[in-house]
């Protein structure tokens, strides 16, 4: 192995976990037979849903767009294989809420036919304008494939005022059990690096740091070799110590660059863009081969599956199908999660499909410690020792539990990355992260309500103001009219009074002349 001399920085806290990587990382990635039906949820990334462009009964080719992107934050979807759209209906999806959502149901015809659904290929991306490539990445439906599922094209949209100095590739894969990036880096290092070069071209940066945890020596070696092959001196492959959660974006950036992403900010604010190796490879395929994102590497593992392995499967493949082709469930299978044991989402059914964000299907048993009831916090501080964000989890817990959200925010609740280190070490078995999720959700709802109320109030005020103005204008107009009318009537009045006075005078004079008592008339 080539030893790099790159200086590394340390984060606070972190954990050494039981990694179980060797359960699944020994064999090359497998390709499974096509599933009976593919289930493609319409919403796959944060932000808004794309717009459907197919209807039930349509025949689609592989790679054909089935939902389109219009506007910011919207990423299209593509058919993972050729076949017929049999339905567009609600199905259970991978979401913490366990709710169902609109899915496109595709019945494969077995031909896996692209027809001419491939996009125009750019075999020489360095000759192409960056913005065109960025548009392509968006059109290919690429999102962050490490789990964050943020549209990749948006992350690559750099602004002139903050130049991007460094592209960080997150090959840490720090969660236990997951090995799909490990396999990908071993098997497709050149594709990853060519994707990296495309990104560097788009964001016009001259430095790329690829961080890989040192429990993946084969991946590191393969990536080093690929870099030699490409001869790109701008790219550095950097082994980093294995310590959960070094693969968290913020933590990795600190390890590799010594810089901290400011609280509430994005890496771009400190001149860094961070992507995952799988995303880099997807970008390579989208640009150089013209293929949209329709499949991915993922790990099927845990005590609950007979033959843990890595597979490359079309998006939309139901988990059930994956398990059936990994030797089925073992008697230990009690819990199903998408993602790793520290941050994955628990699923209630295996009818849920693989989506762009799915890096791992973990089938596990229920550990004994779970049956123990939570005890009160004994303030031991182990959570604070483990927290990679250097928070005081026990204080966050205390204030979240008491619903004292202002205090929780003062203790930097929103800098919590929900890595689960605190809950892992807590000797009282308190489900700490649940309290943070709850508090964050509550605060967001309150804020939303507040913004909504503010908007409503503003609207109301505006409306009121408009009414008022209308009223005022009306009143002014009226006043003007009146004034005009008044001047005319006033003149008349004056004349009348004058006339009356004169008449009275005349009468007086008359009366005086007649020497009668004329007071009564006055």
């Amino acid at each position, binding site marked *: 192995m080539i030893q790099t001399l790159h200086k590394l920085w340390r*984060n*606070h806290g972190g*954990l050494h976990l039981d990694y179980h990587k060797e359960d699944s990382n020994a064999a090359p990635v497998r390709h499974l037979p096509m599933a009976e039906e593919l289930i493609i949820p319409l919403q796959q990334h944060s932000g808004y849903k794309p717009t459907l462009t197919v209807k039930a009964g349509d025949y689609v080719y592989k790679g054909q767009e089935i939902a389109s992107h219009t506007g910011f934050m919207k990423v299209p979807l593509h058919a993972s294989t050729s076949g017929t759209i049999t339905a567009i209906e609600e199905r259970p999806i991978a979401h913490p809420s*366990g709710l169902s959502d609109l899915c496109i149901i595709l019945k494969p015809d077995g031909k896996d036919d692209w027809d001419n659904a491939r996009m125009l290929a750019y075999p020489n991306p360095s000759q192409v304008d960056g913005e065109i490539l960025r548009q392509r990445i968006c059109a290919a439906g690429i999102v962050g494939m490490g789990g964050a599922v943020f549209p990749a094209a948006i992350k690559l949209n750099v602004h002139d005022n903050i130049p991007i100095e460094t592209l960080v590739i997150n090959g840490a894969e720090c969660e236990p059990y997951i090995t799909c990036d490990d396999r990908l880096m071993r098997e497709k290092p050149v594709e990853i690096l060519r994707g990296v070069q495309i990104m560097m071209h788009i964001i016009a940066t001259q430095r790329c740091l690829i961080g890989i945890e040192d429990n993946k020596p084969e991946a590191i070696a393969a990536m080093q070799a690929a870099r030699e092959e490409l001869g790109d001196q701008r790219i550095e492959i950097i082994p980093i110590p294995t310590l959960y959660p070094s693969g968290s974006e*913020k*933590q990795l950036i600190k390890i590799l660059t010594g810089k*901290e992403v*400011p*609280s*509430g*900010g994005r890496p771009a604010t400190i001149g860094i863009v961070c992507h995952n190796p799988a995303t880099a490879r997807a970008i390579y395929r989208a640009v150089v081969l013209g293929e949209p994102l329709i499949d991915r590497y993922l790990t099927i593992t845990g005590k609950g599956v007979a033959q843990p392995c890595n597979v490359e499967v079309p998006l939309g493949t139901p988990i*059930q199908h994956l398990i059936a082709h990994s030797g089925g*469930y073992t008697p230990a*299978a*009690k*819990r*199903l*999660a998408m*993602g790793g*044991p*520290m*941050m*994955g989402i*628990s*699923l*209630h*059914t295996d009818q849920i499909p693989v989506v762009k964000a799915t890096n791992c299907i973990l089938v596990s048993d229920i*550990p004994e*410690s*779970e049956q*123990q009831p939570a*005890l*009160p*916090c*004994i*303030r*031991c*501080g*182990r959570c*604070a020792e483990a927290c*990679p*964000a*250097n*928070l*005081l989890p026990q204080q966050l817990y205390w204030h979240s539990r008491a619903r004292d959200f202002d205090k929780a925010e*003062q*203790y*930097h609740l929103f*800098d919590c990355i929900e890595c*689960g280190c605190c*809950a*892992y*070490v*807590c*000797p*009282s*078995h308190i*489900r700490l992260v*649940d309290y943070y*999720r709850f508090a964050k959700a509550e605060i967001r709802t309150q804020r939303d309500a507040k913004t909504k109320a503010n908007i409503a109030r503003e609207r109301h005020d505006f409306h009121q103001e408009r009414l008022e103005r209308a009223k005022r204008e009306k009143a002014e107009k009226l006043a003007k009219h009146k004034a005009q009318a008044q001047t005319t009537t006033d003149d008349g009045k004056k004349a009348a009074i004058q006339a009356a006075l004169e008449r009275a005078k005349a009468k007086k004079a008359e009366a005086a002349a007649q020497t009668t008592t004329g007071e009564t008339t006055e």
Partner: protein
Amino acid sequence: MIFSKRTSPYVSGKQDVSSIMRQVLYALIPGTAVLIWYFGWGMLSNLVLAIVFAELLEWGMLTLRQRPVRPFLSDYSAVVTAWLLAVAMPAFSPWWLIAIAMIFAIVIAKHLYGGLGYNPFNPAMVGYAAVLVSYPVQMTIWPAPVDFSVVHIDLGQTLQHVFAGSAQGWDALSAATPLDAVKVSLSLNKPLSDIYATGQFGLLAGQAWEWVSLAWLLGGLWLLWQRIIGWQIPVALLGTLALMASVFWLIDAQAYASPLFHLFSGAAMLGAFFIATDPVSASTTPTGKLFYAGGIGLFTYIIRTWGGYPDAIAFSVIIMNMAVPLLDYYTQPRVYGTKRGLQG
């Protein structure tokens, strides 16, 4: 197939409250063994009585407060409290003295404040301080630490003393602890060299007592090694105590006891590794722990040297317990991506 849902993380570490408390108990064994070696049945009776009272009171309070009894009784926290009190109280303590101390510790300091995790004061030290203030005579009669095999006080005599009051000739056995001896002599303006010449002092501090302290140190180091406690509290406590003692000792070695004497006398070692490290009532931030334990060391020296009591760990711990909320607030670590200090 339908799976049971759960929020992440799905795995957890191996330490839990009862395993931590158990390890603390293991670490207390060497020091306790040395105490038993010197005080025989007198220390064993302390221990047994304290634990029995503690568990009964814990059970009673949990039942009264309508809390689940089993998970809390099996967390061993009451046993730790009882054990710490038992080894801090004079051997052959009468049963009622132990009972009163345990009532203060378990009922008042722990459960009336909300039970495990909610007590701002260290329960064992509240119990200790309460009986020390109320029964200073009983609390300062330590029998002379004699080799168990030399002066044999058997179980029957012990029980009689503990439950029925003093047997004849009992007083003859008692002796001032080294801290006491030093204090009394100094108050009579005797130079320390005279006291040391009396022969009840060993290499580090009082004979016997230095062995007890060394045994506590051993257990404490094991706790550090096992990562049950952090280094901050013992280091800051002993460091401050030693620093204060050194300064005055260098000024006048005849009027002020040496730093080694302070470290290896009384409850300094027990306090540094087992009492001040009680997580519930200590500061939780790393910097806060330094100030907290440093404060205990400082007050211990001050009270030992100029105060009315020979030993001072209990009072110092209680004083610093009061400062914890403030310490915790002002010593928050710098959060990733932020400037130091509180937000907003």
